[in-house]
């Protein structure tokens, strides 16, 4: 066999292995059909609640820190869509905590597939697809509600911002889970950053105090999930004084976040392996 055909064989075998993992999981899940339906409805319901909250808040006051309802609705929709997609992609990484504690991670590491990919594929949740689809639909509604003047650049941003946001959220998911490699019980603290991050990004960051902004919006990059993209889409000035086109930098921030998370993961796995488990 030639070299290239060998490489191709190996690649095809790998893809087949991943596909079988996912397929087996989906089969197993579909057997609990009633439970699956409830799960799906529940997941979508959480997304609905985020939107309902914005409605109710604006029932009480016509503006939120100077932003109108369509503007905040757009931010919430961007945040929810990004979070739902991230949850779909890497939501299972929070199980790392359990795997490390019970030693199951060793079984994962023995296999000739990437540990992170296995973890993520190991418990495919079709319900998360429902929430992601709902997120995308709500984003469309929010964009129409805000009556965006869509130039080609803005249209690209409307599609790209949730993806970039999902990458940022995914990076935070993976990074907070990685702490389990060093400190097993620290996983619980990560919820404040992941779920808290979602709540943070759903509203204009100008409502938060300086310290909170510095940590979440800039330190973790959450401002680039919904706030700056929304400002760019709405062609609205930033009360904090940042340039209007900052929203277009989201993919860049997402790349940086992904790189940092990948580095943390590699270091974590190496540390776990080297401690003689």
């Amino acid at each position: 066999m030639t070299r290239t055909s060998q490489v191709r064989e190996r690649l095809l075998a790998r893809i087949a292995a991943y596909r079988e993992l996912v397929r087996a999981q989906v089969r197993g899940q579909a057997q609990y059909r009633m439970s699956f339906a409830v799960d799906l409805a529940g997941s979508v319901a959480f997304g609905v609640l985020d939107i309902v909250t914005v409605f109710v808040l604006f029932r009480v006051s016509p503006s939120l820190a100077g932003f109108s309802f369509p503007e905040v609705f757009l931010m919430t929709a961007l945040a929810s869509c990004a979070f739902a997609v991230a949850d779909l992609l890497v939501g299972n990484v929070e199980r790392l905590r359990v795997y490390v504690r019970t030693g199951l991670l060793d079984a994962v590491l023995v296999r000739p597939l990437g540990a992170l990919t296995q973890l993520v594929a190991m418990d495919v949740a079709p319900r998360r697809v429902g929430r992601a689809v709902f997120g995308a639909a709500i984003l469309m509604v929010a964009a129409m509600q805000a009556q965006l003047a869509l130039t080609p650049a803005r249209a690209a941003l409307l599609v790209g911002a949730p993806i970039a946001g999902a990458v940022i959220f995914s990076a935070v998911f993976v990074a907070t889970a990685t702490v389990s490699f060093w400190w097993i019980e620290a996983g619980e603290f990560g919820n404040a950053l992941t779920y808290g991050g979602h709540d943070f990004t759903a509203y204009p960051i100008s409502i938060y105090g300086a310290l909170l902004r510095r940590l979440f919006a800039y330190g973790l990059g959450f401002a680039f999930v919904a706030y700056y993209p929304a400002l760019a889409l709405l062609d609205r000035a930033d009360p904090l004084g940042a340039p209007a086109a900052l929203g277009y930098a989201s993919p860049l921030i997402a790349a940086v976040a992904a790189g940092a998370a990948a580095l943390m993961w590699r270091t974590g796995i190496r540390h776990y392996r080297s401690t003689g488990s």
Partner: protein
Amino acid sequence: MAAGGSSPSRGDLRLLGAYVALAVAGFRRYATYRQAMLAAIFTNTVFGFLRAAVMFAVVGAGAAAGYDEPRLATFVWAGQGLIGVVLLWAPTELADRIRTGDVIADLLRPVDLVWQQLAADLGRAALAVLTRFIGPMAVGALAFTLHAPRRPATYALFACSMLLATAVCFGCRFLVNAAAYWLLDARGPQVAWTLASGVLGGLYFPLWFLPRAAALAIVLATPFPSVIQLPLDILVERGSTSAQVALLAVQAGWAIAMLGLCRWVQRLGERKLVLQGG
């Protein structure tokens, strides 16, 4: 047991002693979960800052739906603390025991399962007041101007309210777990409970932000506001003393209803266990 006589018999006193012992056991058990407690306090604190920011942005400098800024601050921070006291998130320990059959050991004891679990839960709640409530409240008090109770009666009313809220929440959590008698998977009831307790309990927004009729209907017709919303309304003194007492009465009604429902469901569940040959 000897009939007649209004004085408690020896058996009754011993039974009460058993429940007190169970409560103390619950207290001591949760005292060992130090890491989980710290993580929970940390998470509640972060959410306290986030929610307070949103609430202030909505209210601005004035007031909304009967809440001014200090009241909203107290609402948010005491709410985060209260989550730990009532234990809003339902652990599925009992459901797992039902599924594996280990619950038989609990049923063989001479104490009723519902009161047994309630006693342990009250012990846990007592510890939570000292840890998961005080923690976020302290941070909130340092970082914000909270509404200090103006009427001395509020303290006593709030203490009673917390007790009733814990009982109502316990009842709901027990029912979520008791679904395991009939369902393979308690996930459905758990998801439904998390959703309902969150939105209808007043965690996403104070219920009074909704149209008055809707809010009133939810408060009276569902147990969820009795868990978080009503204790907080009592604490921030939203309304007169008679309003506070009225809210307490609603909570008491729901506590009795939920506990009664628990005992009924438990009896049905026991019968199902027996039918299955357990």
